[in-house]
């Protein structure tokens, strides 16, 4: 049976390198390059075995480590010629500088994470709807067109971009109506119109489950003696009326 080695994930070559240095408990200003380079390459090999994606940055770092390693192996030149100044600098210097720079921000990121944790527990209230101070209630909904509605929505979404991450546009589905809602709708229609035709209930309700719900609502209303149904001849229109003792 294959067993999987759990490899820590690293945010980049510096992250990995720093990890190795800490693990080996060595002085960052005096890194045993040869040793660390081996560990680093070893780690990349493990990643490869596990089929993990090794980005080019990790490989570049491996090359850099090997380059430094070979430079360190070169015998120190004697104080001759112009090369001397160049050779005097420690080949690890640039790497160390960058490592320390990286570590600073890694620590900062950890501190920010702590703050994030605390402040994700704080809540605000939305702004009150102060536009209302100026709206004369009468004319706001006069002469609107569909395009005004769309523009308004578009505006809201843009204005409030961050809050709207969860305004999931792709998954908006029309919700099914419940039997209670359907009953309310039917009663509403009847009180407006006295009587309605059965077929009228299903106009626009193309969805099959809605049709079932409306039908169930109708049955429920009959049972509750809220409505009554009349059909004068076979295959004629079915009329729905408010229930009264007279029309039974």
């Amino acid at each position, binding site marked *: 049976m294959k067993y999987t080695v759990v490899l820590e994930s690293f945010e980049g070559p510096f992250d990995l390198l720093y990890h190795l240095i800490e693990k080996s408990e060595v002085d960052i200003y005096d890194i045993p390059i040869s040793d660390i380079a081996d560990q680093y390459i070893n780690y990349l090999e493990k990643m490869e075995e596990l089929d993990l994606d090794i980005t080019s940055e990790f490989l570049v770092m491996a090359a850099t480590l090997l380059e430094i390693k070979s430079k360190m192996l070169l015998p120190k030149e004697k104080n001759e010629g112009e090369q001397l100044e160049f050779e005097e600098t420690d080949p690890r210097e640039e790497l160390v500088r960058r490592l320390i720079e990286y570590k600073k921000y890694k620590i900062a990121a950890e501190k920010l994470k702590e703050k994030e944790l605390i402040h994700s527990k704080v809540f605000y209230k939305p702004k009150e709807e*102060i*536009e209302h101070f100026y709206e004369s209630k009468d004319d*706001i909904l006069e002469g609107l067109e*569909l395009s005004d509605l769309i523009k308004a929505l*578009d505006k*809201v979404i843009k204005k409030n971009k961050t809050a709207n991450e969860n305004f999931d546009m792709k998954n908006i589905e029309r*919700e099914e109506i419940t039997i209670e809602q359907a009953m309310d709708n039917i009663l509403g229609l009847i009180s407006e119109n006295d009587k309605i035709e059965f077929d009228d209930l299903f106009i626009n*309700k193309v969805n099959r489950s809605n049709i079932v719900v409306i039908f169930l609502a109708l049955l429920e209303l009959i049972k509750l003696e809220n409505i009554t149904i009349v059909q004068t001849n076979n295959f004629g229109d079915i009329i729905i009326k408010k229930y009264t003792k007279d029309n039974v």
Partner: protein
Amino acid sequence: MDQREIKSIIESLLFIWGEPLSIKDISKVIQRDKKETEQIIKDMKDDFDYNRRGLQIIQINDSFQLSTRPEHYEWIEKLCLPKNSKTLSNAALETLSIIAYKQPITRVEVESVRGVKCDKSIITLIEKNMVKEIGRLDKTGRPIIYGTTEYFLKYFGLENLEELPKIKELNEINKEENNTV
């Protein structure tokens, strides 16, 4: 948990709830019985008044709500007047568009999209018969669920809600516009 801590918690509950919150719901959270809870809130009302706080606690039947004080109206008006004349009259329309597309939807959800309280514009929309209550959510506070009316469809010349222009298209328009910025 001492009395002061409980008051502190109740204040934060009222703050984030935004609309009337029932004694029942509050007492459940703070794990005190209803009578005790009511007494604590009445104490708080007095504290608020005594300390001339900028907010007051108002009671509506068995519910409580935080609000500003009427005597501060003129100051609030000063804050709001110059800034917002631009956005005038769009509140109701924005609210309506969100309800139309996301129905069934609660007030809190509408507000989280708009980023602004919407209680007043929802009342306006109900008065105008564009929006109606279509039920209540079965959770704490039993928040009302809103949807659009038949009149809404008629008004905008739609046969049904499926006829609303697809939001996906809207999304793409947004994306394009963002790219050009």
